């Protein structure tokens, strides 16, 4: 077939997990191609302007977009092929179907790492389709990457980390943030992020929900209400706000289309964002030679994505015939660091969820 490319390792997705996987695999001497549908590598790191927490291995103290630039530069320096504007539309055994700048071709690899990330969840209420209602990530992309404010007076839905961070960044971009609406009784995100926006005078209303959005042709007003113990709106508690922007930060769902098409087995994990491909502790799915890393393997944080990427990249390289005792050692170290990232009050829940996925893989592997 015309237009049939071949490589050792193909990585789908050029975000933190994908670039990290590519670097790790490349370091073993394997030939690596990263396929990304966007015009520049870096994935969602490109719009992160806050400093990351954690340890040195995970770029602590650095801003997200700088990490993206560094990873991409390292890939170029070390001879990883970065294909941007390249959409992987399908997976057929170890072959990817790709469309790039109007041309369709295939890329066949010994091992494939899916690092496709996640997409933002929507929330449906009357008026949610009006122009002005958008994902918090969309707002973040436009203010930080494109330097355009999509609105001036904003309400945020969701007090997880995304909701809190984007609220603060909207303030930095010059918007007026009227408040954060959270259905849960408690703030989901880190206290340090919540404290920052509170200091700026932005109220966080827990046990509240959006009732509806109104406007002639575009968003003009949002009505919120308090919730009772059963999660039902309390009559008389409604409040209306004149806003031109309503951001939804209500979670992410793994982008698993390629893993489904490849025939991976899945398990549902509410904590990890939905259906997640079963994977081994080396990130290999139930399809031999197909690995996952980052949010597609369960929604966590960029630091986890970097580490999972490294692990998957190494394991994929070993699968492709570039294994060594040194590589096994590095894999073990990466697994240790992942364990550390999943400890503490915020990490232990994710650790249990992650272990559930690995146990599922072991059950499948044992039954085979």
């Amino acid at each position: 077939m015309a237009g049939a490319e071949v490589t050792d390792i193909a990585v789908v997705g050029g975000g933190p997990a994908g670039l990290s996987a590519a670097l790790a695999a490349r370091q073993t001497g394997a030939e690596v191609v990263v396929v990304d549908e966007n015009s520049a590598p870096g994935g969602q790191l490109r719009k992160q302007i806050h400093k990351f927490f954690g340890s040195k291995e995970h770029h602590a103290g650095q801003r997200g977009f700088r990490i993206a630039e560094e990873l991409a530069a390292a890939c170029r320096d070390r001879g990883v092929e970065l294909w941007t504007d390249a959409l992987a539309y399908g997976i057929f055994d170890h072959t990817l179907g790709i469309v790039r700048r109007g041309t369709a071709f295939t890329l066949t690899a010994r091992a494939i790492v899916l690092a496709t990330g996640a997409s933002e969840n929507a929330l449906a209420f009357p008026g949610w389709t009006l122009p002005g209602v958008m994902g918090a990530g969309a707002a973040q992309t436009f203010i930080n990457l494109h330097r355009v404010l999509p609105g001036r007076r904003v309400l945020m839905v969701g007090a997880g980390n995304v909701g809190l961070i984007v609220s603060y960044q909207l303030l930095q971009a010059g918007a007026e943030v009227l408040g954060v609406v959270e259905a849960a009784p408690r703030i989901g995100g880190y206290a340090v992020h919540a404290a920052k926006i509170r200091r700026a005078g932005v109220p966080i209303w827990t046990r509240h929900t959006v009732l509806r959005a109104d406007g002639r042709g575009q968003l003009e007003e949002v009505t919120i209400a308090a919730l009772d113990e059963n999660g039902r709106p309390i009559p008389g508690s409604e409040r209306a706000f004149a806003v031109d922007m309503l951001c939804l930060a209500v979670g992410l769902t793994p982008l698993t289309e390629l893993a489904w098409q490849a025939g991976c087995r899945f398990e549902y994990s509410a904590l990890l964002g939905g259906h997640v491909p079963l994977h081994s502790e080396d990130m290999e799915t139930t399809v031999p030679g197909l690995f996952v890393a980052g949010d597609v393997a369960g929604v966590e944080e960029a630091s986890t994505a970097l580490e999972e990427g490294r692990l998957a990249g190494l394991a994929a390289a070993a699968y492709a015939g570039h294994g060594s005792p040194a590589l096994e050692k590095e894999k073990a170290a990466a697994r240790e660091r992942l364990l550390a990232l999943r400890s503490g009050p915020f990490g232990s829940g994710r650790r249990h969820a992650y272990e559930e996925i690995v146990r599922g893989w072991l059950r499948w592997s044992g039954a085979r």
Partner: protein
Amino acid sequence: MKGPDVVVVGGGVIGTAVTYYLAKQGADVLLLERAELGGETSSACDGFVILQSKSPGVHLALALASAELYRGLADELDWDIEYRNCGGLIVIEREEELPAMRTFMAKQQAIGLDVRLLLGDEVRRLEPALAPHIVGATYSPQDSQVNPLQVVLGFAQAARRLGARVRQGVPLQTLRRAGARVSAVVAGGEEIPAGAVVLCTGVFTPELLTPLGVELPLRPRRGQLVVTEPAPPLVHHIFLCARYIAAKYHPELLAAAEDEALRLGVGLALEQTGSGGFLIGSTREFVGWDKRTTPLGIREIVRHATRILPALAQLNAIRTFAGLRPYTPDGLPFLGPVPGWENLYIAAGHEGDGIALAPITGRLMAELILTGRTSFPLTDFAVDRFARGKDQGGQLKVTP
């Protein structure tokens, strides 16, 4: 314990049609579907009710009778099956294809199909989006389109209203035999006495018959399709191409071809559906039970379609899928009793014509099972026709 008069096995378009027409005649019918209604071939196909593609002979005559039933079917079922009498075109890309198409058309006209040849600008006036190199097309105003899944659901719903029971998630396990009769079916762990049993199990029919010592020359043939995003109306008819006809009736010529697209049996089958999206097929491949799509198949379908309708290149493909068509060596389905059995019937093997032929198949099977006679002779569709040494359906010349 008295069971239903008839147990229909298989809830695709054929099984639901047979169930409906049996119930309409007053029979007590039970439909057993092992998974979900329309979950296999009937939901992995296009919605053509096309007459022009049928081999001129008994095949076309059967399709004409079926098309007639489709006219009033939405009202009869009280269900929107998205029927549209849009007319169809078989596009001719090369001068060399003209003589064969003229002959094909003349035979069809003799059987009563309204079909004519449009050359050059005549066809482009009808469909301005056609590429300049198109030589012409045969056109029939009788060709139509439906939504296959709505046809399945419509038949099932109407059958239920008439008292039929439709059970999903119930696989057939075995047939209990008493002499030359099926006495009961065992399904879902239950033994159900049956007056008669009809297998409407498409590509899966041979595996049900082998335990009974009956070999059926029916094979799965894969067809891949591509779906585009919704778009404004571009075309007004359903489309096949002349190569589709060749792929359908002369697979041996294509198997040896140099061209990849030809080897895959790619022939255009294109419709713009009610939602605005295009459904574009198709390949014809013998690859066993593999229902996956392939990059080569997708690429060749797209390449072929955009050559004929260049504007399609501007659309995004949003989905691909493949279905297994029940292929028979002569292109005709098996409709009739299983030899050696008094009350076991088959209605399967329609290949790509299941949607088009479903109403007439349902009606004739109901007649056959309930009265022993049919309003259309079924001799050419006999289950044992190959065992009797007849093999080329193209030469059959029975007319009703």
